[in-house]
């Protein structure tokens, strides 16, 4: 738009001033068009959320199926391992096959260790070692927990097996616990349950010597 204006100076002489004024229309805001975006993204979001929940449910279901399959697969092997007439060879074969199940086999193997004798103990220790080579944390956790309980709840034979496997698997953070255990042995504070008198009694010196030898060997292992 052009404007023209006549003005007069102080002497009264007329002047003409020409000016150009441009009027522009205000530009629209450049923000995100949320409704449009949400409209576009919502099907994708819905698909992702749906997929996530479907996957979670599927994984959970598959995990349960796997646990069930593991339990079924391990059952026959455990029956064989714990059987009255299992030979050394059969015990070793059953325990080694259990080891192939990996971490899920640790709990039943450790439980079986509680009543294990001269035939089963080497087989079970071997299986725990085999699992521990691949999954040290799965094996170290329960075994370190056994060693932490020094009140006689677990037999000294279980402690012995735990010490040997911990040493072979080279469990991280086992050194401090082994040193504490060694001190407990030296102080004769470890106890064993005597079924005859139903009392907790200090371990006999002969057994203390056996455990000391295993602890010393374990502490020699490089960590």
């Amino acid at each position, binding site marked *: 738009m052009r404007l023209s204006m006549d003005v007069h100076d102080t002497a009264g002489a007329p002047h003409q001033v020409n000016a150009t004024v441009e009027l522009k229309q205000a530009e629209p805001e450049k923000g995100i068009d949320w409704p449009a975006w949400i409209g576009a993204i919502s099907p994708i979001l819905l698909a992702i959320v749906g997929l996530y929940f479907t996957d979670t449910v599927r994984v959970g279901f598959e995990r349960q199926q796997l646990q069930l399959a593991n339990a079924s697969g391990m059952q026959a092997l455990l029956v064989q391992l714990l059987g*009255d*007439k*299992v*030979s*050394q*060879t059969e015990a*070793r*074969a059953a*325990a*080694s*096959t259990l*080891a*192939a199940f*990996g971490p899920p086999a640790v709990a039943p193997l450790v439980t079986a260790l509680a*009543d294990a*004798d*001269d*035939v*089963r*103990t*080497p*087989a079970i220790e*071997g*299986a725990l*070692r*085999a*699992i521990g*080579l*691949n999954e040290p944390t799965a094996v170290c956790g329960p075994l370190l927990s056994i060693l932490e309980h020094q009140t006689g709840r677990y037999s000294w*034979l279980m402690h*012995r097996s735990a010490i040997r496997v911990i040493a072979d698997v080279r469990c991280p953070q086992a050194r401090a616990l082994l040193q504490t255990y060694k001190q407990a042995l030296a102080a004769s504070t470890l106890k*064993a349950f*005597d*079924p*005859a008198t139903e009392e907790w009694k200090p371990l*006999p*010196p*002969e057994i203390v*010597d*056996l455990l000391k030898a295993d602890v010393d060997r374990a502490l020699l292992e490089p960590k």
Partner: protein
Amino acid sequence: MRTAVVLLAVIVGTAAPAFAQITPCSAVNDPSSRSKILLDDIVSDASLQNLLQSLTSRLEANLEQVRTELGVQLKVLPCANRRPTGPSDFNRTTVSELNVRGVLMEIWGATTAVKDQQGRPLNEASIGYVIVPVRLDELQQQPAPGAFVIPHRAQPSTVVDDLIKLVDQAGRLGAYASLAVGSKSLRSSQWDEARKQLCAAEAQFTKLKVPTDADAALIKYAKKLAGDAVTRARADAQYSGFLKQEGVALSCS
């Protein structure tokens, strides 16, 4: 890689000798005793059942006699269905597990009908022994045998009692048991008991009428350990018993 390691472990684990027939025996874990003798199953041919019963009862009587004479809280425990096939079953792992459970000795037996070089039929009663502390030493390159089988043969016409007399193990069992207790006492630094039992073992070995090659090696072993008991007792600053006296000789006699 992980699968390969697990498979390797499985293969190594199952590659054990297929002949081992040592089966579990609940008596092994018996916590009430730290000095046990296990009496395993006596394996027999069907035709030799009468011999089997006589042999079993004779061995049990022999062991009872040893238990009384030895002066140690010894427990004789039966292990049904446990049938070692021979000394090779008692490898280092097995013997170590028996040792920590306080088993001093394990005895097994077999009666079979065999033939001599001329093809004549014979009845054979074989008694197998494993002296656990000695076997442990043997597996660490000590020459004395800790596990062996002693066969006894007789004509089938021989009455069972005569064969059983041949098998009578009272003297031999006593010597083996003393040696086991003595050797174990030596390991746990009980010098007086070690010396006493090892000298008793030596004396009983010399009384055997028909010593085997294993017995000859075990006499030398008992003598050596009896001397070791004195030497180590003298070197032990905490020990102040009679073995420190100057008059005590290294040899028993």
